[in-house]
Structure formats: C-alpha cells, structure tokens
C-alpha cells in the first residue's frame, strides 16, 4: 500500500500555520486518498491501477495547495472576551492552566526536588493503590452482568455440599425440585437461577483427543445466563430449553479464557468434550469479562443441572425435594423493594416445602420449616470464600500502606519547607509586585498538585506491578487466583482521591508558611522566620518516627505470631511427602473390588519406583483430613460421645508415609481384607476420650453403618493435626482400605527418600502404567499444603516487614534531610563555637542530641499510638499478645538507633566546618 502521508507531504506546499495543525491536515488528506484508493480496490482494480486512478481523479496539486492556503488564510484574531461574570469559568480555567504551566517550569528548575518528591509519592500512592486494587477486585467490583444491583442470592450462598435435613433457620441450600417450583411461583423476581453449590472438578477429553484434561464444571440451571442478562461471545448460551429432561441435554458453554487456551479461535465452531462417558457439545462461549458469579474462581464449562446425574453420578438427586445442594440467584423485578421480596420469598418458600411433606406432615418437620427463612443477600459483587479469608489481612495492609503514605507525605512536606526557605525572596518579590497572598498560595498548591499527580501516575504503574505480585503471594502455590486487577473507575477514583488528599496533607502548611511574609523584611535580609519552619519540620520528623515505630512493632508482632504458628507440632512429618489427587471416575471406575484392586496395584507399583519409600491411598490427607462424625462409641453405649471423631480410610503404609508414630498394637496390614475381622487403628485422643485409656482390643461402632459395626481396635497412633495446624487434639479412627471398598479414595501420598519434586513424573508414569485413563491432578508436597494454612499469616508478616522497612527508610531520609538542613543553617554558629575552642566531639554531641530529642519524642508518641491500634490486630495474631512488650521495645530501640544513624552524617559534617570560612560567610 502506498504511503499516503508521505505522498501528501511531498506534494503539498506548506500552507502555513502551526505545525500541529499542519500535521492534522496531512493526516486528514492522506486518509481521504486512502479511502478513495481502498474503494477502487474494492471495485476490483489492481493496486497499481487503483493508485494511478486516485492520482488522476484527485484535485490537481497546484490548485489544491492554493485553495488550502486561501482557506486556512492568516489566522483570525481571537475576539477578546469582554470582562464579565459570564466568562468567569473560562478565565478561571485559563488561570489554572497558567498556574499549571508555571508549576511545571518551577519543577524543571528544581529537578532534584521534583524527582525525590515524585518518587516518594509514587511509592506511597503505588502501595496504597496496589492493596486497594486487590480489595476492590475481591470486595467491590460489580459482576460484569446486566444491572448487577438487581441481583440477590437466596441465602448466604456460602456452604458447599449437600444436606438432606429439613430447612430450619437461615437457609442457603435448595433442592432442584424446590428451585423449579419456586421459579414458577415467585411473584417478586423476574428470573431465578440455580447454581450447584460446589464446582465439580473432573477430567474430560476435547474432541477426539486421547489426552485427559482437568475440567472445572459449574452446573447451572437453564435460567442462569438469562437471569444474568448475558449475551454470548460466540455461539449461544444456555437457555431454559437446555434444562428440561434429566440426562437429555449434553450441551456446555465455555468460559472465554478457557476456550482461548484450548485452541478456540475467533471463528466459532461447536466442539465436543467427553466427560464421564457423555459427549457434550460446546454450543457457545460466555463473554470474555465473565467468569461466573464467584470472585476468585473460574469454571471452565457451564453445563445444565439436568445433567447432574451424568456429571457426578454419586452426588445427584434432581427429583428429591430434600436433596438440597443448590445456591439460588434471582433478579428483583423493577420496583420491588428488598423487604417486599423478603416477605414474599419466605412465604412462598414455606408453602412449597410444606407441600412436599404430603397429607400427614411430621410435627418436627413442620416446626423446623416454620422457623426456616431465606435471607436475601445482595449479589451485585458476586460471592467469594476468599473474602472471609483475606478481608482482615487486606484491611490491616490498607492501614499499613496508609501509614507509609503519611510518612512519604511528611517527607515531601519537609522538602517543600526547605524549598520554601529558598523561595522566600521570590515570594516577597511577587507580593511586592502586587500579587495577593491567596494567588501565591494557589500557585504553590498547584505545584504540589502537579507533583502529586505525577506521583499518582507513576504510582499506578507501581501498583499494577505490585498488585500482581500481591496476588501471586496470596494465591495457593498451584495456580494464581483468577482476580481482575486492571484498574477500573473505582481504583482510578481512589488513586486520584489519594493524590488530592496528599496535596492537602503535605502542601497546605508549607504553602501557608512560604507566603507568610511581609515583602519589606525579606527583600532586605536573607534570614528570617526560618526557625519556626524548622520547628515544624522537626514535628513532622517526630511524626514519621512515631509511625515507623507503629509499623515496626506491628511487623515484629506478625513475625512472632508466624513463628509460633510454624512451630506447632503437626504429629506427622510433612517433608518429602508428595500428595496427588486421583480421579478414577474419569476412567470409568465405580466403587468396588475392581477399583480396590487397582488402588493396591498402584501402591505396589509406586513403591518400586527408585527413591520412593512408601505410598498409600487415603480418603483425605490433612487439609480436610477425613470427615467428622459424632455417633462413634464403644459397643453398648448410646453413641453420642462428644466431641466429633475424625474418620479416615487408608492403605497399609499410611502411617509409614505420614510418620505417625505407632504407640501400641499394630498398624493396618495387607491381611485386613474384606473377609477378615473389621479393624481400625485409633489415635491417642480417641483412646483417651472414648475408651478412657485401655483401648487396645476394644470394640466400637460408628452410627448404624453396617460396615463399621463392632470394629476392633488393633493399634493406637500418636495424635496429629487433620484439618489445620491450629486445631486441638481431635479423636480419630483409621479404617483399612481393603475393608471399605464402597469408597473411592482420591488422595495418594508418597514418601520419598529424595526431593519429592524430582520424582513426581516417575510416580505419574507408574500410575499411567496401571491405567492411563486415571486423571492425576493437584500434585503438591505435604509441606506446601501445610504452608497454605499459614498463607495469610506469612503474607501479612512479609508485607508488614517490607512496609515497615520502607517506612523506616523514608523516616530516616526525613531525619537526615532535616538534620542536614539544620546543620547547614547553623554552620556559622558551629564555626564560632569551634573558633572559641569547642571540640568536634562537642559539636557532634550537640547535633546528635537534637536528633535524640526528636527520636524520643517520636518513639514516645509511636508507643502510645501502637498501643492504641493494637486491638485491631488481636484476631490476626496466634498466641501472641498484641501489646507484647518485647515487640514494642524492639521497635522503639530500632527507631532510636535509626534516627541517630541518620543524624550521624550531618553531625560529622558539622565538625568539619572550617571556622574561618564559616565566619567569613557572616
């Protein structure tokens, strides 16, 4: 394609006028030629012919140039707007623009000041924006759906899983049948959608691919996308027609990101995905911005709830009105208030439920249902489990970075004060020439605003990097949480607000000080009023020291708490253990003897991999290690012995893998088979609580489960942590894998003699040797899993340390700057003193003494402040007193030391003043 701009440039004689205007004209004309050229191409001409045609059909250049010159002509003089009220805003804008231009020139003349101030503010504002971006993404960002403020969840929509009891009290899980009936009978919602309360994590095959890929499936009602008011990126979304007959709708909608990652291009064509023996057609792709209504969780596929029996055969009950496993999301009809919706919803809810009880409803069920209600929860920002987890840490962090910004502001204010001293003559001159003080204050504030906006701009860049880093830090090791961090209007508004707020913080006082002069005095003499500014500067520095003490104390507390947490004995050895999650169902297995044999084959096979010491299947491992049941007790009791007992099903080598110590009896053995006596190994806590000591050989049962009736205790193992490191000692029982074949054991643990990371692929290969169709995922070391539990503690400790150091560094800069400025000003004084016989030591002591006074003032204020805010962090500390004297003392000492260090350099410089030079300056 010809270069049209160059063509125009070559032919057009300069029409005159400003360069920018000329560039615009060239661009516009070039566009005209290009449009004509493209039209000729579309008409079927070859490029050569099209280009020649354009040139001949164009206005001849000499004429065009002449006409352009005439048209642009000499510039029309701007009519002067008459002075008057009507044009006030215009004049106002013009003045601000002039102030802005002046400010930029001033900053260019003081590049050192400008760079230092902008960088400090960029750090402060950037840190704030980064933390706020995360808070915003997690808590505030509205769902990218139609009118999200009309959406409500029916109930808290937090609990995952299923329940079969009668609803009683606040209800959040609902049956599919209830959803259908409610959808029909509600009078207050324009649409209602159902979502399975948990994400189904499974495996499938794309198209005819032999490779098994992990899939996160969200089962939703056909009304899901219509309720949200979404339109497809490609193809179509699910509709009510896709959710009618159980098992008859093998269709799916893909998340845009997943579709892209799996080779879906812009040209949409339906593809198939095989899942649990059913082939689904991906009929469309959801909009790119949409990844479900759960913040921080992104399903790969949405499949109609009617297919629940196919997607997860063992957890399905579409027809059962009491199989409650759905969350409901509804859109309020326009004009319906939340309280109207609330009362109608509860009314319809109970009515439908009572209908399910039939003609002779049991009294207890009726009583329960009469107490049941559905709190309506605004759903505009979706839901998220992460909120509970990170809400507090993020708020603490927000507070911390707020303090860092304060310190940065104090530094900038100090810089401005120092500059003010230098600019007093300029200000005096301008006052003398007739400028009002208000005018000068405004000018100075505009300068501050320019600095702060530059800082905010750079801060946004800092934040985009830092928030990504933060997100990586809060994400589990396996995958970054899918949170949208790109700045939206809320974040930009926040940053802009910060920029303006910082101007008020650091700019106003210096501006007032700078201009509080009478022109006569200053023009005549060079030194005046400096000491007052200087006092103010010292107060600022003391404030910085105080805030740094708070942050250092906080960092010390969090660090101490983290240490305590990491030092908790786990009762098992998490090092050199690999945990894999196996999906045997993806390979078509059902619970039973065949699967049990495969599990044993895998255990045997893996044990022969070089570097492996032992391996075992388990129903679950740590991090949700088993399930709790309360009806466990020795034979002949009423089975209601609190507390709940943890139950787990494990292979023979489980205790060896976990290194749980056998205290008495034996472990689980290969001989514990389906035909042998029912046995279990229990832990010390259960031995003590359930059997009051001598448990070996005793017999117990679990509820009325036939499999666990009259189970003999054959061994006792040491206590361990099963769910999280900070739980108390819980009673636990372990049952043999081979005696409990009706369960699919998903977790496999492998103890290795070498680095478990190096052996993962060999282990996967040996699983594939047994059956290549078994899905393997979530390969993690046990150490990582334990680490995830202290994720928020580690995050907050690490960030508090980083920010406390940053704050301390900024405060040190502040101390240094103020002391350096003060010693420079007192140069003459020191010169005289030394001329009169003072030793360098005395001068040094004088300067350091001044610094020490600032430090003590600051530290004292800091300790008071730290005690005042300590209760904010109580709930986030583990076995650490939030007013821990050790932490406070450490922070105080550290800050005194830092202050003295920062003052040492100026002090030393003060001793090097040559008295004769200093005196000559006077």
């Amino acid at each position, binding site marked *: 394609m010809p270069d049209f701009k160059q063509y125009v440039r070559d032919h057009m004689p300069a029409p005159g006028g400003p360069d920018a205007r000329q560039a615009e004209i060239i661009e*516009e004309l070039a*566009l*005209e030629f290009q449009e004509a050229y493209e039209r000729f191409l579309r008409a079927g001409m070859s490029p050569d012919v099209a280009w020649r045609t354009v040139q001949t059909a164009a206005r001849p250049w000499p004429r065009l140039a002449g*006409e352009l010159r005439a048209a642009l*002509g000499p510039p029309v003089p701007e009519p002067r707007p008459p002075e008057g009220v009507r044009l006030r805003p215009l004049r106002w804008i013009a003045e601000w623009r002039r102030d802005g231009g002046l400010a930029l020139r001033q900053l260019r003349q003081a590049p050192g000041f400008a760079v230092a101030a902008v960088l400090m503010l960029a750090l402060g504002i950037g840190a704030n924006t980064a933390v706020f971006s995360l808070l915003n993404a997690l808590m505030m960002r509205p769902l990218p759906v139609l009118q999200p403020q009309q959406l409500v969840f029916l109930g808290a929509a937090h609990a995952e899983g299923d329940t079969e009891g009668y609803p009683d009290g606040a209800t959040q899980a609902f049956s599919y049948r209830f959803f259908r009936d409610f959808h029909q009978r509600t009078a207050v919602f324009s649409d209602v959608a159902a979502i399975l309360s948990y994400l189904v994590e499974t495996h499938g095959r794309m198209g005819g691919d032999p490779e098994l890929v992990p899939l996160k499936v969200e089962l939703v009602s056909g009304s899901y996308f219509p309720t949200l008011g979404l339109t497809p990126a490609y193809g179509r979304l699910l509709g009510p027609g896709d959710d009618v007959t159980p098992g008859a709708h093998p269709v799916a909608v893909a998340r845009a990101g997943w579709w892209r990652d799996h080779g879906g291009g812009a040209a949409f064509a339906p593809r198939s995905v095989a899942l649990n023996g059913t082939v689904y057609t991906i009929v469309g792709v959801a909009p790119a911005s949409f990844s479900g209504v759960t913040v921080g969780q992104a399903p790969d596929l949405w499949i109609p709830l009617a297919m629940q029996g196919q997607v997860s055969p063992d957890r399905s009950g579409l027809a059962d009105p009491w199989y409650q496993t759905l969350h409901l999301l509804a859109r309020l009809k326009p004009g319906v208030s939340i309280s109207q919706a609330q009362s109608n919803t509860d009314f319809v809810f109970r009515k439908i439920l009572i209908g399910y009880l039939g003609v002779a409803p049991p009294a207890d069920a009726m009583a329960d249902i009469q107490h049941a209600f559905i709190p309506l929860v605004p759903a505009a920002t979706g839901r998220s489990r992460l909120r509970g987890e990170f809400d507090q840490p993020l708020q603490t962090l927000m507070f911390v970075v707020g303090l860092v910004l304060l310190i940065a502001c104090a530094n900038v204010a100090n810089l401005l004060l120092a500059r003010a001293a230098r600019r007093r003559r300029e200000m005096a001159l301008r006052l003398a020439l007739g400028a009002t003080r208000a005018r000068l204050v405004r000018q100075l504030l505009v300068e501050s605003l320019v600095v702060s906006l530059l800082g905010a701009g750079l801060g946004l860049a800092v934040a985009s990097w830092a928030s990504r880093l933060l997100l990586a830090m809060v994400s589990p090791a396996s995958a970054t949480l899918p949170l949208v961090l790109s700045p939206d209007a809320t974040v930009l508004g926040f940053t802009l607000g910060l920029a303006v707020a910082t101007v008020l913080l650091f700019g106003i006082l210096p501006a007032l000080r700078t201009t509080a002069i009478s022109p006569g005095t200053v023009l005549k003499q060079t030194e005046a009023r400096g000491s007052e500014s200087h006092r103010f500067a010292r107060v600022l520095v003391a404030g910085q020291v105080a805030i740094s003490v708070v942050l250092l104390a906080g960092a010390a507390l969090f660090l101490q708490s983290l240490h305590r947490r990491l030092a908790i004995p786990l009762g098992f050895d998490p090092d050199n253990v690999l945990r894999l999650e196996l999906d045997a169902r993806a390979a078509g297995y059902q619970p039973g003897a065949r699967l049990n044999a495969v599990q044993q084959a895998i255990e045997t096979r893996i044990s022969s991999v070089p570097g492996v010491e032992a391996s075992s299947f388990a129903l679950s491992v740590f991090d949700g290690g088993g399930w709790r049941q309360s009806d466990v007790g020795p034979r002949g009791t009423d089975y209601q012995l609190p507390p709940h007992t943890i139950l787990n099903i494990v292979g023979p080598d489980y205790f060896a893998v976990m290194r749980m110590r056998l205290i008495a009896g034996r472990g689980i053995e290969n001989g514990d088979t389906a035909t042998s006596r029912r046995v279990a190994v229990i832990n010390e806590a259960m031995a003590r609580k359930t059997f009051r000591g001598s448990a070996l050989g005793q017999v117990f049962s679990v509820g009325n489960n036939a499999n666990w009736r009259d189970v003999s205790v054959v061994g006792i193992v040491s206590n361990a942590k099963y769910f999280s490191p900070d739980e108390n000692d819980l009673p636990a029982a372990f049952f043999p894998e081979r005696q409990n074949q009706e369960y699919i054991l998903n977790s496999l643990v492998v103890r290795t003699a070498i680095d478990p990371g190096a052996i993962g692929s060999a282990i996967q290969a040996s699983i594939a040797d047994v059956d290549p169709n078994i899905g393997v995922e979530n390969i993690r070391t046990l150490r990582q899993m334990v680490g995830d539990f202290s994720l928020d503690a580690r995050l907050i400790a690490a960030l508090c340390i980083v920010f406390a150091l940053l704050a301390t560094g900024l405060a040190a800069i502040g101390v240094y700057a103020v002391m350096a400025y003060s010693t420079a000003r007192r140069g003459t004084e020191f010169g005289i003193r030394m001329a009169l016989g003072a030793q360098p030591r005395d001068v040094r002591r004088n300067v350091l003494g001044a610094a020490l006074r600032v430090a003590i003032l600051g530290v004292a204020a800091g300790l008071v402040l730290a005690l005042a805010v300590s209760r904010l962090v109580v709930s986030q500390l583990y076995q650490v007193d939030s007013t821990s004297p050790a932490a406070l003392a450490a922070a105080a000492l550290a800050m005194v030391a830092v202050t003295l260090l920062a003052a040492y350099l100026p002090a030393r410089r003060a001793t090097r003043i040559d008295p004769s030079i200093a005196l000559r300056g006077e």
Partner: protein
Amino acid sequence: MEDNARKKGSAELLVLAQLEGRPRHGYEIGQEIERRSGGAVTFQIASLYPVLYRLERQGWIAGRWVEIPGQRRRRYYRLTPAGRRILRQQRRDWHEFVGALQRAAGVEHA
C-alpha cells in the same frame, strides 16, 4: 467574480447540508453528496477540504478527531449554531436564485 462566489457558495451549501442531521467525516461528506445527487454531483478527491477548512475557520462547522476502537481515527465535522443559521439563509438564497433562473428561462414548475 459573482459566478465564482456562487460556485463557492454552492459547495459550501452542499457541505453544510450534509452535516445537518449528524456529524460526518470528510470522505463521507463527498460520498453523501454523490449519493444524494444520484451521482450528478461529484468532487475531485481532496477538493472538499479547502471548503471544510474555510467553513471551520468561519466558525460555521467544528471538526474533532474521533477514535473508534478498531478503526482509523477520523476528523468528524458538525454544524455550529452559526452554521445552522447560515445554512438556512443560504437555502433561502438558492431558492430565490433558482426561482429567478426558472422564471427567466421560461421553465415552468412541474
């Protein structure tokens, strides 16, 4: 001279008239004149720009660069209130001029 002024005036009138409904960019204005006149009135490529710039300088139209994602940025022109007044006035003038021609040439109204 009078004739030249007329010609110039006709181009101005045409451009102003195209902008009556909505803002348009330069190329579009030429295309629109051609389309509305059934192909009877065409302009050489680029010849409308001097007219546009003159009208803009007189304050009758105002140009503004508009960026539409996925497209080139273009300069869109819209009528200013002053331009709207001029358009009305020029329309009236042309009406009288054409009427006078018809009367003089003995062409009857259809």
